[in-house]
């Protein structure tokens, strides 16, 4: 039904979106690449060609390796909590119960809380060593209060971020569970398959694809956690909770080192692209266009 006329019209309709996204992708990124080869500090006038110096300094800086390890710890930690927690919660919420709708709403709620709010609520109302709820509980039980953000900053941030993302994995895995073929389950049951083998041979393979989607999409977002770190620890103490986005921010907008920050930005882009490569293949396979 597509005529030459309608094809032209279709191209015209697509072009604004394509042109805008193309510019958005190519202009700033091109500038970042360009800056990354310059000696360029906002505090000192003038720029000069620096070759690979910025990359050299960024990659040999101890802070970078700390940040890389922290970034990976943060991503893996949050993924472990949200994937296993999400599977458990989805299986639980899939059972018949009273008031399922209300429980669902309570479980999903954290996803809608903006990052600055969730981070500050956890930091002050729960993890604060003097007035926080955990301190009150510790005192009531006769223990000394623990200063979570000072002594275990990265772990505290993992908990805060995992709390915000648990609803996401739960919701997706629950949606996947609900599309499970009930008749197949019943047939397996009639053939004498135990609950455990039904779970292992029917439910798990069915969930694999959704789990992969959850892992990949969360990784994309978790690689760029920023606000939670900014309002809780400012990356500290030292570099104990600095991840790569925060390091790039500190280098470019706090130390005004445009060249160095840009080199860090390009490193972050390369890391994210490794993950994106697998995600794109995954989604592409499921697209029947």
């Amino acid at each position, binding site marked *: 039904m597509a005529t030459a006329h309608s*094809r032209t*019209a*279709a*191209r015209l*309709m*697509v072009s*604004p*979106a*394509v042109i*805008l*996204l193309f510019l958005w992708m190519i202009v700033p*990124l091109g*500038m*970042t690449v360009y*800056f990354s080869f310059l000696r360029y500090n906002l505090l000192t006038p003038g720029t000069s060609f620096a070759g690979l110096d910025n990359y050299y300094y960024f990659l040999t800086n101890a802070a970078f390796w700390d940040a890389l390890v922290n970034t990976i710890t943060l991503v893996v930690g949050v993924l472990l909590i949200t994937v296993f927690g999400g599977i458990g*919660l989805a299986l*639980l919420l899939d*059972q018949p*119960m*009273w008031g399922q709708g209300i*429980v*669902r709403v309570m479980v*999903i*709620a*954290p*996803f*809608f*809380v903006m990052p*600055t*709010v969730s981070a*500050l*609520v956890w930091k002050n*109302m*729960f993890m604060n060593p003097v*007035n926080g709820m955990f301190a*009150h*509980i510790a005192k009531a039980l006769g223990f000394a209060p623990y200063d979570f953000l000072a002594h275990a900053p990265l772990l505290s941030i993992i908990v805060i971020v995992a709390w915000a993302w*648990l609803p996401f994995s739960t919701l997706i895995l629950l*949606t996947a569970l609900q599309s499970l073929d009930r008749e197949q389950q019943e047939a397996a049951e009639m053939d004498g398959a135990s609950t455990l083998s039904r779970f292992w041979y029917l439910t798990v393979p069915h969930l694999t*694809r959704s789990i992969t989607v959850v892992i990949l999409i969360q990784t994309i977002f978790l*690689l*760029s956690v*920023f*606000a939670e770190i900014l*309002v809780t620890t400012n990356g500290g103490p030292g570099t104990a909770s600095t991840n790569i*986005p925060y390091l*790039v*921010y500190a280098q*470019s907008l706090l130390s005004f080192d*445009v060249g160095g*920050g*840009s080199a*860090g*930005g390009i490193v*972050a882009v390369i890391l994210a692209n490794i993950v994106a490569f697998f*995600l794109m293949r*995954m989604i592409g396979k*499921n*697209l029947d*266009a």
Partner: protein
Amino acid sequence: MARKITQTRKTTVTVIAWIIGFLIFFPILWTILMSFKSEGDAIKAPLAMLTSHWTLESYGEVQERSNYLRFFMNSVVISLGSTILALVIAIPAAWSMAFVPGRRTKDLLMWMLSTKMMPAVGVLVPMYLMFRDFGLLDTRTGLVVVLTLINLPIVVWMLYTYFKEIPGEILEAARMDGANLRSEILYVLTPMAVPGIASTMLLNIILAWNEAFWTLQLTTSDAAPLTQFIASYSSPEGLFYAKLSAASTMAIAPILILGWFSQKQLVRGLTFGAVK
């Protein structure tokens, strides 16, 4: 031939699920409760806090001290503005890709998605400098533009998956009945597309409202939305728990309500149609 579920099992599941649900929801509930306390009562031990006097004074103080409404309006303008702009650009694009697919439509969709994979921090420096040079720092216009661009791929994708579900035969049937292009769009396609557009809009408002990288980097005060306003509580003076709670409650309430309406669409939108 549904399986019989014993009452004991259902009761056990209900109790466990309610306890876990309550624990997950608890930080939000606690924040809401604390917002109705005075500063002195808010830092008391949990039981003493609960039984203390209830008051609305924190809400008044937040507005009085920091002009809460201005930040709220910035959030509304930025999230609504970027959503509407993204829809205006994305609807024709998704429309033509769904109804007049070409050989490269799939590649185009994948490419659009790939722009979403770029970490924001990779373009932080040039964006900041461009905003500075064009006088866009701390303006609503600047933020509307950036948020439109970062959410555009998701909007196109979501609309595309919804439009794909509109059966093409209906168009042919309408044409056979003598409908011209205008009435085809107006009376046949639009009514079928409205639910999809509405859910896309809802999800995008939520994403834009909670966006906390560019809103924190590119605003300071004039155009600062609620994310930035709440962040200003990270270096507080004196007692501030009740005020922080009141400000937080007001910042999350509208989105919490919108979000509960959009649970289903959320899955589709955030997985780019990979899980429905």
